């Protein structure tokens, strides 16, 4: 039987096991939306902006490990989703995005709402397809899902011209695909793995430096086994949080620009760095030429281009993290046979000393304004029993969330790492909530970031996605303000957000619930109330605006040279600036 392109599209998604589609219609995709309207089994979540659709698909993918799917129209629909594609490409998120295109005979004529979707998405997708013939549609969709989800995952775009969605073809869904130029390497080289095992057995001061690849590859168990067997401390990148339990005694927390003192000191002074599914990003390495100067480096990654891109590697192993670690553990079991506690003891003593010397701290005066760290820490403590999924936006609140949320399992941490996309958090949380309707999903947002995709509150209300958004409201682009205080003599050029809207009223305007914690003693009750509320909630937490996020490695600085607190002068200045009581803030907010 012949099906239209639109029907083939829907059939293919079903065969791929897609349950949820994040979408926004337009002229050239109306045929597809018409078929979507008449089918059952695929949930269509109508977003209010295509960027929202893209980030929701990302959140869905990060939380489930299955590809997120978005559908947008040609021209502006496509250009609006580009940010999400760039974000997904940077963070290796499996995404299949379908865009509408003008009819094949109009392509290239500057037709209404025509854009070069292939050109726009080429640098921000793992691959992209323009489907010129309805007979190619099914096989293209199959290939798109295959490419998005295998090897190093990433976004794939399929551009479907209007006539292709209307034309008819016989439908058969291919069982498998083979692409001669695409053969990811999954098994690590055995000889290299043996070298790695020998280096680990000998090392006195080894460190595991794990990244998002551990999450995608599902290698958490293996990391844990390796770390425990060889008593190796585990540094996590921003993308890896949750891949190793944050409260595990071997966990060092996050490393990098705002990582913990001990995580950064340990990597700097280590004699062996075991990088797993991480890519030596500049936010992690600091000054490349002085990154872990004393260490041999083992690098395990599925993407050969990640290896030796920024940093010289002594033992490169291309392969899937999980399989390589399995093999490595087997070799180590046979050679190390057991206890490395004694060998590592001096190293751990040193680490414990660092931990005691500079723990994460902040001062919370119980009658003073709420400190952002305190709000985030309480949120963590009050929700951890429910194993929430946590998303963040970008800025100070993101870094504090990374420091204080000690997640016990992977796929519960949704954050924009590589691109640092403000506005990611809320839609990403909604995407995760769509996948897990019964889980507690939190979004820790900044008052700046959250306004970048606030419109999606309408989507959350209509589709009953009960995300709890906690706005750490410092009435600044806080991270920008921090850099201005540290490096630009406190000139707050375009970082002041004092015209921030009243988030409680804003929530209510959308038909959601708005709550506010005015003082420290409100925090727990308000958080509990938010969690007990059925639908989506915005919790506005006006916080002390002049808090800076530490530790901090200034851009281009060395990992062991962290700024740990405001300098005395800056501290004085911050205190003078900060003479705003919570009550004052409240009048400002509601004025």
């Amino acid at each position: 039987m012949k099906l239209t392109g639109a029907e083939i599209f829907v059939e293919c998604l079903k065969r791929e096991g897609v349950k949820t589609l994040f979408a926004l219609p337009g002229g050239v995709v109306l045929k597809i939306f018409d078929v979507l309207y008449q089918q059952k089994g695929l949930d269509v979540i109508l977003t209010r902006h295509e960027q929202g659709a893209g980030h929701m698909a990302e959140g869905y993918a990060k939380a489930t490990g299955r590809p997120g799917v978005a559908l947008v129209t040609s021209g502006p629909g496509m250009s609006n989703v580009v940010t999400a594609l760039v974000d997904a490409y940077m963070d290796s998120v499996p995404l299949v995005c379908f865009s509408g295109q003008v009819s094949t005979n109009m392509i290239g004529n500057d037709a209404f709402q025509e854009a070069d979707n292939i050109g726009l998405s080429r640098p921000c997708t793992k691959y992209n397809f323009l489907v010129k013939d309805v007979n190619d549609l099914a096989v293209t969709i199959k290939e798109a899902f295959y490419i998005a989800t295998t090897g190093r995952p990433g976004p794939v775009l399929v551009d479907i011209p209007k006539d292709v969605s209307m034309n008819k073809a016989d439908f058969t869904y291919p069982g498998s695909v083979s692409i001669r130029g695409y053969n990811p390497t999954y098994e690590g080289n055995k000889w290299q793995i043996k070298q790695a095992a020998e280096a680990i057995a000998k090392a006195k001061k080894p460190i595991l430096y794990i990244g998002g690849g551990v999450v995608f590859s599902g290698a958490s168990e293996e990391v844990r086994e390796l770390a425990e067997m060889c008593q190796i401390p585990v540094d996590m990148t921003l993308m890896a949080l949750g891949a190793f339990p944050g409260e595990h005694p071997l966990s060092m927390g996050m490393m990098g620009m705002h990582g913990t003192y001990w995580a950064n000191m340990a990597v700097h002074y280590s004699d062996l760095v075991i990088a797993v599914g991480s890519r030596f990003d500049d936010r992690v390495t600091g000054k490349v030429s002085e990154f872990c100067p004393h260490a041999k480096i083992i690098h395990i990654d599925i993407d050969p281009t990640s290896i030796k891109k920024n940093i010289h590697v002594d033992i490169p192993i291309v392969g899937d993290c999980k399989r390589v670690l399995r093999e490595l553990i087997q070799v180590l079991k046979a050679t190390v046979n057991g206890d490395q506690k004694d060998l590592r003891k001096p190293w751990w003593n040193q680490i414990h000393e660092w931990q005691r010397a500079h723990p994460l701290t902040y001062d919370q005066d119980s009658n003073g304004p709420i400190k952002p760290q305190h709000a985030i820490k309480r949120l963590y403590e009050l929700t951890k029993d429910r194993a929430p999924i946590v998303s963040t936006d970008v800025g100070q609140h993101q870094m504090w969330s990374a420091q204080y949320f000690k997640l016990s399992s992977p796929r519960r941490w949704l954050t924009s790492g590589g691109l640092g996309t403000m506005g990611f958090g809320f839609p990403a949380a909604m995407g995760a909530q769509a996948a897990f309707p019964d889980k507690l999903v939190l979004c820790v947002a900044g008052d700046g970031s959250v306004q970048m995709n606030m419109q999606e509150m309408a989507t959350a209300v209509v589709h009953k996605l009960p995300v709890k958004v906690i706005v750490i409201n410092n009435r600044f682009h806080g991270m920008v303000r921090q850099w201005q205080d540290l490096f630009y003599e406190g000139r707050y050029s375009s970082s002041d957000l004092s015209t921030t809207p009243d988030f409680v009223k804003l929530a209510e305007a959308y038909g959601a619930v708005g709550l506010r914690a005015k003082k420290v003693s409100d925090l727990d009750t308000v958080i509990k109330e938010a969690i007990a509320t059925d639908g989506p909630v915005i919790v506005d937490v006006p916080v002390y605006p002049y808090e800076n996020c530490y530790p901090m490695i200034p851009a281009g600085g060395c990992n062991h040279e962290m700024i740990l607190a405001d300098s005395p002068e800056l501290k004085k200045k911050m205190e003078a600036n900060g003479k705003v009581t919570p009550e004052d803030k409240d009048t400002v907010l509601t004025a």
Partner: protein
Amino acid sequence: MEHIISVTVENKFGVLSRVAGLFSGRGFNIESLSVAPTLDPTMSMMTIVTSGDDRIIEQIVKQLNKLIDVIKVVDLNETEFVERETALIKVHTKAEDRAEALRITEIFRANIIDSTPSTYTIEVTGDIKKVEAMINLLQPLGIKELIRTGRVAIARESIRPALAQPKRVAKE
């Protein structure tokens, strides 16, 4: 250092822009690039002349390999290879220079492929040294137009006798 990289790609729409986009997006140099179909019409062969230190060349090769439409990448600098380039050179020829132009053409075993009373168009093929030497010699006569194909290169077959007989696949 200069490297010549030979890249076998799918012969389909958009592949050139993926390769070019990779080079521009990552700040790699392209000194020249030539592309044409192979014996198998589903594939094309690109010869890319680029430069960079070892780390950059390693990245270029890996990044090319990562492109899904790329089937095979060979850094020819790792082997022995031969390279050729063709240039078409249109020179002004005043009456008194025409003999000199012909002589240079002969020395380089080049061909005159078009001639008018005031110009010769000369075709020269050879390695880059030869092509550039010829251009340098013709310059004083006045080059009106110059077009070069960019280099193509192919690995030398190893001279072990067993391998020395290539299958006759193409006619001369």
